[in-house]
């Protein structure tokens, strides 16, 4: 689960970490009030969406579609600037490198005091799967596209693995100050900050904390100028306060509904709907559709023990996508019995009045019975023996419609 920058900053502030004063706003009026209240002549006007690359993004008018402004994060030098920028941002679509072409509507704004920046750094904490330990990544090359830095000059990114019980040791913190070429007050400020930030990462079960940029001010203070914070979905049960920060408008409504039904769904751009049990097999099904010249419309894993109701929900979610022209069902019945799945498929196609071509491949437990049930149903359901066979059939059936 991801949160907005303004929410991340509030968590940091609560934990005593160095952030600038800022106000969360939803209207232009609130933005102007925030400017008056902050009393800082120069402020940053920051679009709040769950995606990176905001500064280099482009805003489009939500109705006319014309460009309203370049850049989703702006420096305002006076009150008029605040008004102009907030008007150009709020309610409009921000398209960045990470949002896709559709972009995201900006409903939230963060007005933050300015500061005199001496240098920008990059800082992130995440879990390194290979070492099975939390990892701190820091670089003097902050403020820019860190993926580019990682590709062109990987040695510029300093990495420290941290024992989760011990936390960031003095030695490790010192090592990081050397890597970031920090001295005096800035180094002391950094040591305190990194130890606190790591504790927050562990306490709140974060999946990632990324600060780009972390800045050193002219006064040799270290300030967290950015806050990209993600949480481990599996640990949310012990953080009700984090769950409250969830912004459902940032998530796909069908993906939310799927999650509630115990299904895992990701919408894609193609026209062949997929209904599969198991994440790996679901990905493989998409791959094989593509191999036979088709385009998958979604990833959908119904899980290990899906019942008739879940299968029906899965079908209805797939069919909500207007691009879907046909569906491939691929079930390897292990715990799940194929006869039960066959009945679910029939019930769902009847309940939803499915007219698109449907190819079903059932293998594993009770597959003969499952195939017989489908054949006897009198419905227009094609069966397949292998995944390749199924993919070939659905691609041909859809092609034939054109």
């Amino acid at each position, binding site marked *: 689960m991801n949160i907005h920058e303004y929410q991340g900053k509030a968590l940091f502030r609560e934990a005593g970490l160095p952030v600038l004063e800022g106000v969360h706003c939803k209207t232009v009026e609130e933005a102007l009030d925030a400017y008056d209240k902050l009393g800082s002549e120069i402020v940053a006007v920051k679009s709040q969406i769950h995606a990176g690359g905001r500064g280099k993004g482009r805003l489009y008018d939500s109705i006319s579609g014309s460009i309203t402004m370049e850049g989703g994060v702006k420096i305002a030098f006076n009150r008029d600037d605040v008004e102009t920028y907030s008007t150009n941002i709020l309610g409009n679509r921000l398209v960045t490198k*990470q949002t896709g072409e559709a972009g995201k509507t900006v409903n939230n704004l963060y007005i933050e005091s300015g500061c005199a920046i001496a240098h920008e750094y990059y800082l992130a904490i995440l*879990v390194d*799967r*290979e070492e*099975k*330990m*939390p990892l701190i990544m820091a670089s003097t090359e902050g403020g820019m596209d860190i*993926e580019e830095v*990682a590709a062109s000059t990987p040695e510029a990114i300093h990495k420290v693995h941290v*024992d*989760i*019980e011990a936390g960031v040791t003095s030695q490790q913190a010192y090592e990081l100050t050397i890597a970031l070429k920090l001295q005096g007050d800035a180094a002391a400020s950094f040591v305190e900050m990194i130890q606190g930030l790591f504790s927050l990462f*562990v306490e709140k*079960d974060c*999946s990632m904390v990324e600060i780009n940029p972390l800045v050193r001010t002219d006064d040799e203070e270290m300030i967290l100028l950015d806050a990209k914070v993600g949480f*481990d*979905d*599996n*640990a949310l*049960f*012990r953080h009700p306060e984090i769950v409250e920060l969830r912004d459902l408008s940032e998530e796909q409504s069908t993906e939310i509904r799927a999650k509630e039904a115990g299904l*895992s769904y*990701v919408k*894609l751009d193609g026209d062949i709907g997929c209904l*599969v*049990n*198991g*994440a*790996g*097999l*679901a*990905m*493989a099904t*998409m*791959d*094989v*559709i*593509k*191999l036979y010249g088709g385009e*998958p419309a979604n*990833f959908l*894993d119904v899980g*290990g023990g899906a019942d008739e109701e879940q299968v029906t929900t899965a079908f209805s979610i797939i069919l909500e996508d207007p691009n879907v022209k046909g569906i491939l069902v691929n079930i*390897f*019945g*292990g*715990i799940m019995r194929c006869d039960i799945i066959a009945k679910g498929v029939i019930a769902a196609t009847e309940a939803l009045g499915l007219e698109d071509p449907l190819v079903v491949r059932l*293998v*594993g*437990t009770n597959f003969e019975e499952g195939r017989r049930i489908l054949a006897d149903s009198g419905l227009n359901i094609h069966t397949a023996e*292998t*995944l*390749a*066979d199924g993919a070939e059939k659905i691609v041909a059936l859809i092609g034939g419609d054109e």
Partner: protein
Amino acid sequence: MAIWIEEDAKILVQGITGNQGTFHATKSVEFGSNIVGGVTPGKGGQTVDLGLKKVPVWNKMTEAIEETDADASAIYVPPRFAGAAIIEAADAFNEIKGGGVIVCITEGIPTLDMVRATSHVRAIEGVRLIGPNCPGIITPGETGGAKIGIMPGHIHAKGRIGVVSKSGTLTYEAVAQTMSIDEGQTTCVGIGGDPVNGTGFIDCLSAFEADPQTAAVVMIGEIGGSAEEEAAEWVAENMSKPVVGFVAGMTAPPGKRMGHAGAIISGGKGTASEKVAAMEAAGIRCANDPSEIGAVLLKSLQDAGLR
């Protein structure tokens, strides 16, 4: 021979009185596995009906291992308690018999709990953790065999192919593919789809390399992380037996989690095409489609003079 789990292994079930625990333990007994009992805190002294047999329940893993001399444990406890269950099992196996295999089936364990659990297990020599969020491990026997997990037992047969996979149903697909060319399996290991897990590809590959019964290995990867690339490097340097592979997620978009917590392409890393390229460069023949794994395996066995 097999790896880590012999076909007559004595197996405990943690969370045996829960729905999942009872259901899958019953299936294991039906398959012919030697389930010797289970553990549920607070329910010690009870017995659980597993259909063909009734088995005792203990409060603690130490008691259960002392009484049964178990070789392995399957964990079906809910996600919030699973990390602690792994640590309890590791300590108990270490204390009572100096080793054991822990198979954690549970899905949805907090990542940092797994960071703590794996770091604990790593420090104990002789204890192996498989999973979590995996189908488990199975060593098919002449009749029955050791089925520790949720895989359908009946699709397997004793043979000479080792199978290792991140995915559940895709593992069954791979097993079915070996059967399609009349080859059975020595041991099949599902290592799980979580970002932080116990046993990895390299552990499995090196055990299969050392196992005289295993003639070739099928390795199934998926997007996310770099475990496949590291395994490929290991294979190039150390593996004498043929390895064939498949990687799921060629069409997965970056930044989207594909079901498994670990199956995500982030920062341009962990793509399927990178993994396939690394595997093929290491001499691992990869199928483009799971339905072709059998054919690719057959070709590899023939080229190695094994068919």
